[in-house]
């Protein structure tokens, strides 16, 4: 009886520490260099530059719901694959996300750095794996539903925006790839 009570308390403490750990989840989970090496086995291609025309800036602005600062975006491309390292503010601080797109569909999403004290659950594969295979609709939305995470609404929203952005930019890069 006493042993069961001790076990229950230990389990409770463990769950509490896990949830506390998830809530306070800021950190760098993978460097951009490591992400690129993982995304391009062999040799990482040199970065390419996509210049943002007015039309592209307008579409990006629609996706991100804000003006995008910058006139060019850096990306890595090989065969049908492109890799993007993008940032978006969750609640107050930027989340760095690495996204690989292949043939117009998300191949991989990886949270590279999370800087806020709450909402870090987005880094878990249980969330990011939902994006694998997702494509962009003509209305610039993902063609599938992504389950949210309670307490991480803004982080989820930020990651969804970035995946939509990566799919759009991949499409642009495929039509007219820029020179490095």
């Amino acid at each position: 009886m006493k042993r069961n009570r001790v076990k229950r308390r230990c389990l409770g403490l463990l769950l509490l520490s896990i949830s506390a750990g998830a809530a306070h989840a800021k950190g760098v989970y993978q460097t951009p260099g490591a992400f690129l090496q993982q995304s391009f086995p062999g040799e990482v291609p040199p970065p390419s530059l996509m210049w943002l025309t007015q039309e592209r800036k307008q579409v990006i602005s629609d996706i991100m719901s804000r003006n995008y600062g910058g006139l060019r975006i850096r990306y890595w491309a090989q065969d049908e694959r492109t890799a993007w390292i993008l940032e978006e503010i969750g609640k107050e601080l930027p989340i760095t996300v690495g996204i690989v797109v292949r043939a117009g569909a998300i191949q991989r999403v990886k949270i590279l750095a999370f800087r806020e004290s709450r909402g870090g659950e987005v880094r878990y594969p249980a969330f990011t794996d939902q994006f694998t295979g997702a494509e962009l609709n003509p209305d610039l939305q993902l063609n599938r539903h992504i389950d949210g995470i309670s307490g991480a609404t803004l982080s989820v929203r930020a990651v969804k925006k970035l995946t939509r952005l990566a799919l759009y930019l991949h499409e642009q890069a495929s039509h007219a790839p820029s020179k490095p």
Partner: protein
Amino acid sequence: MPRLNLNTHMPRWHRFLGISGALFALLLAGTGILLNHTSDLKLDNRYVQSDWFLKQYGLHVPEPLSYPVGSHWISQLGQRLYLDKKEIASDTSPLTGALTYVGMTVITTENSLWLLDETGALIEQLKSHDSLPGNPIDLGITKKNELALKTSDGWYTTNEALYPWRPMSGSPIESATTGSLPSALQQTLKHSYLGKGLSQERLLLDLHTGRIFGPLGVYLVDLMALILCGLAITGLTTWFKRRRNSSQLRPSTERLKLRESIK
């Protein structure tokens, strides 16, 4: 125990309170009159320029760090970055260099590199943790007209695509150099940094209530209020006593005259 002679002490107290509180009374009256006419004098739309007063409110303008870049200036005040008088970024780490390179303005802070076009629009921002060989310490141009970046590991060079970064031996022929901002631009940046700053109305209110000197100032004003109350009380008491004394004196004079007349 000798009886307290209020006729002697009250006027003395009145004099003492009046002299000691005169300066405060003038300050209270002066600030009060001005505050009564805030709208007419537009005191809420006029701002304090005195560094001393601004410092009391913690409104301190840091010294700018500036780099001349062609005909422009890149400056940093605190964590704000300016291209001439236009704020281009806030919450930046310390500025480490700025120069012109192939028609672009290149700016480095301790954790980023910024590329601006000729209009000052942001082309790209690279962070030291992903796209730079390290944290930028200095900037330069090599004799081959390549961009040079100094990190704790030494100098690296690159082209306008900012890739790849190659270790460089030696030093660049031209380095980013700080300069002294023209005073007019410095004043503009100072006002921009302060924003609307401290209104004259706010300053007068805080002088009137003593809050400008913190809790001690508030207590001093409370003391001043008590002094003014004391002035009123001692003044009224003195006046009343004198009035009563003069009325008591008048009937006895009349009695004397009456006696004289009877005689």
